[in-house]
């Protein structure tokens, strides 16, 4: 699996996720600077967590219009897998690749802790290695993670089976319908607020996040 990680000014989880990908795939992860327009050939493109462009205007709004994200949108439309974690999720909604928006947390606080999630379906390239509905533990770390869409849009997303993960314990940020992650229509673009790369090594206290990357690795090496 060839994976590329986009680096924006203000990204701060790019190396964590690149390291996790390299450990799972056994090959180096390509790092792509935000001003680049020619992405390397990739099976997976990752938009990492952080504070791209200082979160000015709205989280992810500036990054969504950067040259590299225009190229990512084109690749996604051609069927390439794209993963957005935290700030990357915000960028994907702002770029129109995923439905909804991520607003300020309902309690207005930055929240950084482990949460339990349910895997809503385990038949996608991102989740094949998980057991359906079995709770997994992944950390969150954000202030703008309240998933919002109007009721019609939420019904549509749910009806199409595009909810990827839900918070199963306390809803940490006020997200509508406890949504922690959503898919694109073709299920090849995933955005989620929790950070799977932060629990992907026993040394970090758990490996529930690692399975997402292993699932992708299996999907692209068949």
């Amino acid at each position, binding site marked *: 699996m060839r994976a590329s990680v986009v680096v924006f000014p203000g990204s701060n989880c790019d190396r964590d996720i690149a390291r996790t990908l390299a450990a799972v795939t056994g090959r180096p992860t390509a790092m792509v600077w935000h001003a680049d327009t020619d992405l390397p050939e990739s099976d997976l493109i990752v938009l990492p967590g952080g504070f791209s462009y200082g979160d000015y205007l709205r989280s992810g*709004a500036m990054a969504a219009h950067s040259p590299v994200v225009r190229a990512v949108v084109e690749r996604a439309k051609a069927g390439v897998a794209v993963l957005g974690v935290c700030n990357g999720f915000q960028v994907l909604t702002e770029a129109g690749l995923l439905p909804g*928006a991520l*607003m300020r947390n309902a309690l207005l606080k930055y929240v950084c802790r482990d949460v339990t999630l349910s895997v809503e379906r385990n038949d996608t390239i991102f989740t094949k290695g998980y057991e359906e509905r079995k709770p997994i533990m992944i950390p969150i770390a954000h202030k703008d993670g309240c998933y919002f869409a109007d009721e019609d849009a939420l019904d549509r997303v749910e009806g199409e089976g595009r909810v990827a993960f839900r918070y199963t314990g306390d809803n940490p940020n006020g997200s509508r319908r406890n949504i922690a992650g959503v898919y694109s229509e073709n299920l090849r673009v995933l955005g989620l607020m929790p950070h799977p790369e932060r629990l992907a090594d026993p040394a970090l206290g758990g490996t529930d996040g690692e399975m997402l990357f292993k699932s992708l690795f299996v999907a692209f090496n068949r």
Partner: protein
Amino acid sequence: MKARIKVTLKNGVLDPQGRAIVNALESLGFNGVKDVRSGKYIEVTLAETDPAKARADVERMCRELLSNPVMENFQFELEEA
């Protein structure tokens, strides 16, 4: 020309910052505050002198970047700079 742009949350979108402002106003003794909705105010100065063209440009700016149509509305006024 100058555009004075207001970006506000759509009706029905929860505004936790507005709620926090209500609480702060109450703690200052303003007991008659029923609701607060907060938003953004943006001024854009344009080289364009034709009002129709300026209006079309600002519309697009609001739609493509300055507001997020999922949760926000925008309105603006144009004036000679």
